[in-house]
């Protein structure tokens, strides 16, 4: 039996001749310090790439890349094919994990100075792999052809349309025609299934090839500087004097971590299930609140907070500048200190980017800038604000509700966050200021002068004037109050300094 096996192996080996290069790759010595849990993210990203390829091919057995049928085929996958939902969930969670692992891998490699001589090209290919990973995440979100995908494409087209001169042509190229339709999905299918994965496989192969040929980056020690003239020799001495074979010395940790990541993806898929699809991609259904996937929420936030004049330059130029900086790093700092202990700027940069990303993502999940489209019809005005209220104040509350003020302003803790919450508005603005603001708008407030009758405005501001704590009087205009008091009692004493309101107060 064993003889037969050996003969068969020998027959193939004689023709393929894989043994020698494989043995070299497996047994090549690596610095002992690199057999570390910090060095497992690259191999985990590679494992996830293969998980995505396998699950992607399996999904393509059922998925129909047609604008008319894609959404239906996703629902068949979710509900009719045994474990179709699980395959979709694996692919979706695998994508999220892959983006996360690729970013962690890049941060680790950056902090360990691994991009320095002679590994510049490895880093550059890695930057392209990062861009392609994000490209896969976006195109994959489009293939989940639902409302979010449809309007996400609309946002992509709107961004491209801002490119000077050729914006219109680029939009048509992106969409494959004048609108988001069948041709759009077909070309995103080609990108997601043929072009980007093909390029990714090639780049990932070269990336790993160079890791094997140039050796894994040694653990950085403060004060051990990289010099082009001497580095290779020092590295070879290090692996010779204090090296261990890559397999199994360092590789078992890669194996263990990859297995753990695959298990984590599977658990997330099993417990949390697949992503969508949300509503069908029918643009005539406008009752939708489009939102990008998790990893693009920060862009969504940035687009809400940028000043309008900066928006177009930012969204068109910033990504290119960011990629150019990443590509330039190994040439700008190709030598010198590798240890993060002596690279404060590098550490600060990574932590700043991470904090910014976290804050923008957190804001993107709550979207305080978006009106709550149904707040006006969903949440009633708290009854305590209307206890003992005059008919005029009640009428004002009805106007407040009916005119969708609550889509942007919260009251009693519910409603939009686009504008300030109005529970204590009377302490901030006098009734005249509120009247002026309602009629003529200002800042982010639309002007309601044409849309409200004078009686409605009067009722509304009278309601707003009751919105103050019981122990805090509403703001008032001292001059006007003096005139009012004099008119009421022409022969009385001058007005008191802080007259209490007479219109009632909320408790």
């Amino acid at each position, binding site marked *: 039996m064993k003889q037969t096996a050996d003969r068969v192996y020998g027959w193939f080996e004689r023709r393929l001749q894989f043994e020698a290069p494989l043995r070299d790759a497996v047994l090549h010595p690596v610095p002992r310090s690199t057999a570390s849990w910090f060095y497992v993210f690259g191999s985990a990203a590679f494992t996830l790439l293969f998980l995505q390829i396998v699950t992607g091919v399996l999904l393509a057995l059922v998925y129909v890349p*047609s*604008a*008319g*049928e894609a959404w239906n085929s996703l629902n068949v996958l979710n509900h009719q094919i045994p474990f179709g939902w699980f395959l979709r969930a694996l692919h979706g969670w695998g994508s999220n994990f892959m983006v996360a692992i690729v970013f962690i891998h890049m941060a680790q490699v950056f902090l360990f100075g691994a991009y320095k001589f002679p590994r510049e090209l490895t880093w550059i290919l890695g930057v392209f792999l990062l861009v392609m990973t994000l490209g896969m995440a976006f195109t994959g979100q489009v293939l989940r052809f639902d409302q979010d995908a*449809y*309007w996400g494409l*609309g*946002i992509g*087209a*709107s961004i*491209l*349309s801002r490119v*000077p001169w050729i*914006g*219109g042509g*680029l*939009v*048509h190229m992106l*969409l*494959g025609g*004048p*609108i*988001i*339709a*069948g*041709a*759009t999905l077909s070309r995103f299918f080609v990108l997601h299934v043929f072009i980007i994965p093909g390029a990714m496989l090639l780049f990932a192969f070269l990336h790993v090839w160079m890791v094997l040929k140039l050796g894994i980056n040694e653990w950085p020690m403060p004060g051990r500087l990289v010099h082009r003239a001497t580095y290779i020799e020092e590295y070879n001495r290090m692996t010779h004097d204090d090296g261990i074979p890559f397999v199994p010395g360092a590789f078992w940790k890669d194996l263990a971590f990859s297995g753990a990541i695959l298990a984590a993806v599977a658990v997330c898929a099993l417990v949390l299930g697949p992503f969508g699809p949300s509503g*069908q*991609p*029918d*643009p*005539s259904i*406008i*009752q*939708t*609140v*489009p939102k990008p996937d998790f990893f693009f929420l920060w862009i*969504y936030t940035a*687009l*809400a907070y*940028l000043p*309008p*004049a900066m928006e*177009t330059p930012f969204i068109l130029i910033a990504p290119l500048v960011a990629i150019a900086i990443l590509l330039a790093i190994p040439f700008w700092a190709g030598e010198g200190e590798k240890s993060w202990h002596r690279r404060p700027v590098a550490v600060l940069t990574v932590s700043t980017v991470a904090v910014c990303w976290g804050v923008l993502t957190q804001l993107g999940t709550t979207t305080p*800038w*978006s*009106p709550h*489209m149904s707040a*006006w019809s969903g949440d009633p005005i708290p009854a305590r604000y209307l206890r003992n209220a005059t008919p005029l104040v009640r009428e004002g509350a009805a106007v407040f509700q*009916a*005119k*969708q003020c609550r*889509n*942007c302003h919260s009251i009693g803790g519910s409603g939009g966050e*686009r504008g300030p919450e109005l529970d204590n508005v009377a302490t901030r603005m006098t009734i005249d200021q509120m009247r002026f603001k309602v009629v003529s708008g200002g800042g*982010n407030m*639309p*002007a309601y002068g*044409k*849309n409200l009758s004078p009686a409605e405005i009067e009722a509304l501001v009278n309601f707003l004037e009751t919105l103050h704590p019981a122990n805090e009087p509403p703001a008032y205009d001292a001059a006007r109050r003096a005139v009012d008091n004099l008119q009421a009692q022409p022969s009385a004493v001058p007005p008191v300094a802080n007259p209490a309101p007479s219109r009632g107060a909320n408790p």
Partner: protein
Amino acid sequence: MNHETQPQQSGLANPAPSHPADPLIVSRRWLLFKAGIALNGLVGIALAVPVLRYLFAPWRKDSSYDSWISLGPADTFPAGETRLAIYKNPSANSWDGQTDNVACYVRHVEGNQFQVFAINCAHLGCPVRWFPQSQLFLCPCHGGVYYADGSRAAGPPERGLFTYNWSVVSGELLIDAGQMPTLSNTASLVNIPTGRGDCPCRG
């Protein structure tokens, strides 16, 4: 074919004696090699023309996509009100599914005066929603707000809603439409002050 290649293969198996010193043979081989590259280059260029033409097929003039489409009888839009209307995009394919049902807002100002707004917010193209009670269009994405006449009221958009050219022909309301309205196929990327928003979809 096989008969012709047979002798060559056997020739490879027993390599002929080389002529390292003969520059004539080498240069002739290099000449043929270069001629081979030139031939492939020429064929490549000849093939690239139709391939690029095919690839860039969607890159057409805006006007070639647009045509006049009916939104139905004009009197289905009551005067003084703004209604959602849906039309089929003129360049539809059978596999487009629901995606070529395009929505727009028709505002019947009075008499024979209309305004037809694109559904897409002028900021990033999200679908704006009409609230008749407050007479405002609100965008769910980044909080763009527009007045009833389409002019910008608040939020990140730098201009009013995109509008379609319209015309009433024998009682039917027609609009000139056919592509997703964006900043590139409308007026241009200029700051339009608050309050107008009267910009046709085709610049």
